[in-house]
């Protein structure tokens, strides 16, 4: 199971999906009326994406867990103000991002990682990644865990806005447009930040990248 989401499951119509799940708008309306069961479904729908975004920003499981829970609690309290002018996941991610950025400002960065839980099945399926690691790694004894430690170290060297765009685009798979809505900036800013962040990362990970 991967933390990354290629695309957030954005539902926009009122009718149930083919799988029988209620649409976001229906669940949101019920949650606005105080229905905890409806909100429970929304949490289950977006929990992995929210957690992953926060985790890749903090590189710490406990912090990500706390912040993810607080994000959903904050979102429930504010859901009455959600008018549907944006997608729910955009609105929710904005809360998560703001909470995370505030957290990172208040707390010094920690290098504590949670890298011991790796998805070996996904690794086996992702043959390209395996080949990259084996081919590009100068020290062949470097395993995936160590590589992820180096990746996280490199990510933490980025400024928070640059780390965020890399997290949302290169890890989470969101589009420039979606990221611009979450970060409340234009797509040009997103593209420039992404380019600069990649350049920085490429410098930090020069031994792994051509």
């Amino acid at each position, binding site marked *: *199971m*991967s*933390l*990354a989401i290629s695309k957030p499951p954005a539902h926009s119509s009122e009718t149930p999906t083919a799988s029988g799940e209620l649409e976001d708008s229906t669940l949101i309306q019920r949650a606005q009326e105080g229905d*905890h069961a409806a*909100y*429970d479904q929304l*949490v*289950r729908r977006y*929990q*992995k994406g929210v*957690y992953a975004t926060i*985790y*890749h920003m903090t590189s710490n*499981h406990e912090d*990500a*867990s706390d912040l*993810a*829970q607080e994000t*959903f*609690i904050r979102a*429930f309290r504010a859901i009455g103000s959600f008018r549907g002018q944006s997608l729910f996941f955009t609105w929710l991610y904005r809360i998560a991002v703001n909470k995370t950025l505030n957290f990172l400002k208040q707390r010094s960065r920690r290098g504590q990682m*949670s*890298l011991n*839980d*790796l*998805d070996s099945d*996904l*690794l086996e399926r*992702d043959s*390209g*990644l395996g080949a*990259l*690691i084996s081919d*590009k790694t100068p020290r062949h004894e470097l395993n*995936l865990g160590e*590589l*992820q430690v180096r*990746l*996280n170290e490199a*990510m933490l060297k980025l400024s928070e806005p640059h780390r965020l765009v*890399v997290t949302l685009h*290169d*890890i989470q798979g969101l589009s420039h447009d979606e990221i611009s809505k979450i970060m409340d900036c234009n797509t040009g800013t997103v593209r420039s930040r992404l*380019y600069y962040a*990649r350049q920085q*990362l*490429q410098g930090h*990970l020069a031994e*792994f*990248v*051509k």
Partner: protein
Amino acid sequence: MKTTPSQDFQDLRQLLAAKRLEQPPPGYFDHFADRVISRLEADEDCEASGWWNRLMQLLEAHPLVTSVAGVVMSAALLTTVQFADTLELSPEPRSLSTSFSLAGSSIKAQPEPTRLATEETWVTRSFATVALTSLTPSIRTAWSGEPPKVASGWSVRPVNFTPGR
């Protein structure tokens, strides 16, 4: 030929895909939503008794406020006890000191309060006072014999009944 930036970063992006393999402990997401909902419900319960929690937090945070509150509550308790005691005892002397005239003579009633024979020594009852104030003056003057029988637990003695001359 110069490569485009997207081609340049292709290897980097592939490398960053390794971060997708990082995940929380197994089963973490099974109960995540339950934890969120539990916290929401706990917060709502907390808000229901918010004033009490705020008071407790205030008292915990400020020892001086706690001390002042303790003194005020103790004073209030003592005042209440004293006031209750006054309410209990004050009617007796007033009723006992009542003087009235009957057929040209005045009667002063100064009975001795009768205590309960039980261990409840704090409770003082003046049966005679009750009896005297409830009887008419004519009956009161005629009553010079043995006190009437009353329920067990009570003892009745004749009041110090001195007719005025």
